[in-house]
């Protein structure tokens, strides 16, 4: 039973991650490879505020959202004038640099040893200390987060993002402040990724930088590609599929070491096949053109 809650918690976390990346990739059309950096910044902000400054979970989570959103402008602003591969490489650079800082800045982040002893969240005296309660917490927060992102996507904000994706020059010619909109979408996506990071930190109660590497960013991107980008359905399908895939493999009685690589072979191959035959993924709107 605990195992079920564990799965559902990770589905909640990854639905927030994939849906927020979807805003950047699927709606604004910006191929960002640094989402794990925002995830990590959120996790570390939450963890550090809780363990070093004694903050409670909820204030720390809110602060983590703001901090990560602000830090996202470090990549968003410079990359405004970069196009195509140059933009992708810049986001990649940001991802690697953030990981390197988390891993090597021992005095601040405790480096490769990570941060231990993250306390349980407490809500008005109700302590979140069982998997079921963590599920309630993660589930509720993610439903609210998904609802907010959905509202944004369906609003004129979402529409103008899609216009930028379709034809940026035309959007500029209509008087849209494209630069500001790109900065905003990065900040929003980073904030929601940070929420996921904070919940992750509180759930696992120990974080280290290796959870937030390039491979993680590629995994989140894979969810968006396979499930489909550019609408409110695709990323959710991708999340459920890719998060439960290891479990489905487990039913086939594979040894764990092989299972971990096999699932990556499967979703790597899935991406290749989809790009060839169905670039919009399982249920997406955007074909990456």
């Amino acid at each position, binding site marked *: 039973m605990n195992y079920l809650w564990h799965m559902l918690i990770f589905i909640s976390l990854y639905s927030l991650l994939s849906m927020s990346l979807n805003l950047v990739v699927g709606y604004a059309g910006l191929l960002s490879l640094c989402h794990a950096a925002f995830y990590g910044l959120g996790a570390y902000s939450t963890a550090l505020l809780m363990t070093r400054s004694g903050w409670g979970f909820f204030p720390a989570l809110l602060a983590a959202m703001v901090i990560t959103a602000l830090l996202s402008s470090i990549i968003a602003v410079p990359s405004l004038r970069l196009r195509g591969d140059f933009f992708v490489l810049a986001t990649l650079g940001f991802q690697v640099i953030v990981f390197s800082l988390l891993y090597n800045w021992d005095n601040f982040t405790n480096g490769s040893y990570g941060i231990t002893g993250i306390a349980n969240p407490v809500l008005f005296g109700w302590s979140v200390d069982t998997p079921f309660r963590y599920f309630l917490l993660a589930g509720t927060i993610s439903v609210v987060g998904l609802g907010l992102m959905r509202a944004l996507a369906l609003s004129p904000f979402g529409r103008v993002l899609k216009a930028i994706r379709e034809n940026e020059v035309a959007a500029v010619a209509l008087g849209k402040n494209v630069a500001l909109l790109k900065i905003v979408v990065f900040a929003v996506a980073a904030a929601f990724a940070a929420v996921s990071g904070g919940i992750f930190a509180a759930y696992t109660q120990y974080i280290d930088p290796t959870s937030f590497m390039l491979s993680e960013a590629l995994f989140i991107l894979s969810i968006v590609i396979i499930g489909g980008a550019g609408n409110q359905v695709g990323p959710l399908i991708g999340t459920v599929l890719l998060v439960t895939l290891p479990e489905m493999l487990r039913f086939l009685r594979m040894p764990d070491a092989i299972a971990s690589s096999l699932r990556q*072979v499967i979703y790597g191959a899935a991406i290749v096949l989809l790009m060839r035959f169905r670039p919009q993924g399982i249920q997406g709107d955007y074909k990456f053109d």
Partner: protein
Amino acid sequence: MFQQLLINAISVGCLYALMAVGFALIYNTSRIFHVAHGAVYTITGYLCYFFLLRLHWGTAVAVVMSILCSAILGAIIEIVIYAPLARKKAPLTVCLLSSVGLYIALSNIVVMIFGSDTKLLRPDIEKVYHFSGIVLTRIQLCQVVVSVCLIGLTLLVLRYTNLGRKMRAVRDNPTLTIIMGVNQRQVRLAVFALGSALAGTAAVLAALDVGVDPNMGMPALLTAAVALIVGGVGSFEGAAVGGLTLGLLQALVIWRISARWTDALTFTVLVLFLLCRPRGLFGIHRRLEEETT
């Protein structure tokens, strides 16, 4: 101390340069960001390990066969993955994502077959040369010599052979080359085969030195990409210079700061170039379509 670092930097830089020129061959002509190039690198390294330690072939044979296989692998990838996308006129983003998926799949197949630990190819002690207090291993010497020769050969091919001229023409103006009847398939196959062979050579040279691990491809690919940007997109010589520069920069960081920060520095250099000097050191041939209005 610094001279020792310099020697190490040059040998590492030569490998970076070799990898970068291979990557540049493919990127400059096809504009495909061939992430799977890193997988070709990894697989070639493991093939060499397999030939050497499982099939017990001689070193020379194992090396040559591995590099041959890498060229073939590169050609297969072009035929099976990119050419069909090109026929469909798929956007470059689709090719990039395809390449990412391929990299993930291939790297993990390697893990499934060989496991995820680092494997050494040569358990014996490496022969070393000493002069004026500096230690140079035989493999480092090979790295420098082979890299310089291969890069030189590639640049000669590009400049003086028919095929090389076609490759440069496709780099400059692909549409025009189609109109003028250049066989696109032939050129594409050639750049992928040659580019992959260069990557394969770099992999083998590195493998003989420090061994193989399933994740060796990504850092090699990323360094090649940074070297390409630093040297300038469109320039093959630039890629080689970029690779050497990164090797030297890394040595500087190790000497003055600490080895742990080399990655961060490499990518900071990347971001600085992207923002302040996107055409790199020697970049030319920025196509008009890439100009933003």
